């Protein structure tokens, strides 16, 4: 899949147009066709793309083209800035409880990386001198508990489990355990589930109402396509998300799901998973994600030039 960067494409589009001056509506329309294509090819949701393009267009028409830029570069700059802004500032910190323990719930579709992310988070918190507790609340997937235990052992974090007991009971007992054993952050690994599975979504609602978690993090696979908006909006409506973790960014996906999820759920993307190892968790950088979605490594320098 050869994907030309948006930058290159736009240069091409604008080659025939005159050099400097103001961006006319016609210029911008031409450019927006390319922007739309680039975003769709990056898996940004169709409707999100539509809104985004309309907004950018409005901002771009009539703008003075900077001396250092061509009209194509000018549009790229505007697109990039809007995209970065849309994906939010560098809000990568966890909400911590004023009075510990902090409760973090990890939720999401099957196989997105919840269990791995729980352990990655525990590892990073341990490194910061905190005392996390991992809680095995996935009672469905074969060997889910064992998986969390193995990962807990790898990062030296205790794992609380009670077998196939009801998740609400497990979580309550885990909270009790954390209080009496001085663990200050409780990280709950929940089973993967479809957002349309009423019974399992109710289980999460029950967990939420009995734990009052400080963070409910939706784990989203960065390779997700158009369905990301359905998943994120549904989880958000039913649970009220506080943040998102985008996983599997170590591949070659453009990761347009990031934009889709941000657009519909509104909450910040807090972390990025960049590998299978427990140290492969990073803060999320909106500007890097913007260049990635647009397929351009050169944006930063372009924007700095301006």
């Amino acid at each position, binding site marked *: *899949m050869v994907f030309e960067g948006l930058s290159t494409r736009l240069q091409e589009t604008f080659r025939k147009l005159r050099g400097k001056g103001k961006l006319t509506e016609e210029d911008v329309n031409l450019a927006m066709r390319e922007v739309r294509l680039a975003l769709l090819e990056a898996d940004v949701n169709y409707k999100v793309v539509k809104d985004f393009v309309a907004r950018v267009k409005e901002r771009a028409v009539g703008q003075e083209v900077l001396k250092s830029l061509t009209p194509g570069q000018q549009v790229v700059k505007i697109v990039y800035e809007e995209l970065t802004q849309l994906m939010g500032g560098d809000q990568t910190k966890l909400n911590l409880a004023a009075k510990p323990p902090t409760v973090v719930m990890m939720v999401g579709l099957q196989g997105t990386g919840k269990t791995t992310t729980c352990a990655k988070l525990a590892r990073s918190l341990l490194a910061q001198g905190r005392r996390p507790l991992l809680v095995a609340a996935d009672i469905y997937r074969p060997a889910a508990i064992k998986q969390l235990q193995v990962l807990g052992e790898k990062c030296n974090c205790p794992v609380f489990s009670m077998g196939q007991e009801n998740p609400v009971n497990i979580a309550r007992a885990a909270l009790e355990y954390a209080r009496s054993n001085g663990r200050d952050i409780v990280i709950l690994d929940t089973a993967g589930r479809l957002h349309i599975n009423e019974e399992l979504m109710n289980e999460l609602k029950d967990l939420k109402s009995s734990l009052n978690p400080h963070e409910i993090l939706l784990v989203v696979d960065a390779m997700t396509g158009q369905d990301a908006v359905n998943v994120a909006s549904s989880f958000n409506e039913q649970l009220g998300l506080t943040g998102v973790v985008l996983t599997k960014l170590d591949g070659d996906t453009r990761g347009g799901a990031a934009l889709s999820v941000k657009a519909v759920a509104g909450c910040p993307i807090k972390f990025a998973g960049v590998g299978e190892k427990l140290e492969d968790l990073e803060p999320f950088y909106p500007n890097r994600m913007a260049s990635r979605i647009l397929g351009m490594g050169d944006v930063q320098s372009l924007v700095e030039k301006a």
Partner: protein
Amino acid sequence: AKTRQNITEKVERLIKTSRRIDDEFFEELEEILIQADVGVSTAMELIDNLRRAVKQKKITEVDEVRGLIKQEVVSIMEGSDAPLNKAPEGPTVIMVVGVNGVGKTTTIGKLAYRFKREGKKVIIAAADTFRAAAIDQLQIWAERVGADLIKHQEGADPGAVVFDAVNAAQARRADVLIVDTAGRLHTKTNLMEEIAKVKRVIQRTYADAPHEVLLVLDATTGQNAISQANLFKQVTGVTGIVLTKLDGTAKGGIVIAIAKELDIPVKLVGIGEGLEDLRDFSAEEFAEALFSD
């Protein structure tokens, strides 16, 4: 399934509410395709062909258009509904590959169950020695369906596991040997080479094996699936696709582009987490589900 209703309803609505076959109509159709992860270029191509056909055949009825798109999709996916390959003699060897978390291990459980019900002797090789508790997970599946499991310790060489599994298959006169492999991103060259090595180990004993290399794709995946299919095909010689998680709201439209560009058939679909949630893929049904009742 619920999945299919959404898109079907959309098309139905579109067909009922719009009376004229105009640009707006085609645009909405394109939107439906793109939202099903068909991809921009494939969607545009489908629509272009449709436009041409509508013009050529002087079609004025919106209803007829539906039949045409369906036909178009079926013709692309044709050949996809071929059954799984079988070994002419000796055990049929099936390797299961794919990126992380798509449903490989679960699919193996379901597939083993299907073979067991056909009265076959099934051996499963736990060649994912990397992921935490991957072996335990597969063991639970093997016990559920009554298949033999060949395993080593976590961290062992996958090639060695498969070597033992091949020997066991011979000694125990197994009908089917299914090999689970660790999830890995297609872009990681050294890990991809590891699968190629596993394949060579199999071929040392059975020159015509593996009879199937099944690439598992998650239906929620977008355009990246093309890159996955492309690289897995290059390195492991994928013979078929299993499209999982079709019980969600994702449509898995990307397999159309994959069938078209890479000529890899879809053989099976996963529609849940239970033993029985595996179906044969049918091009007819797939197209029908996309575009009609």
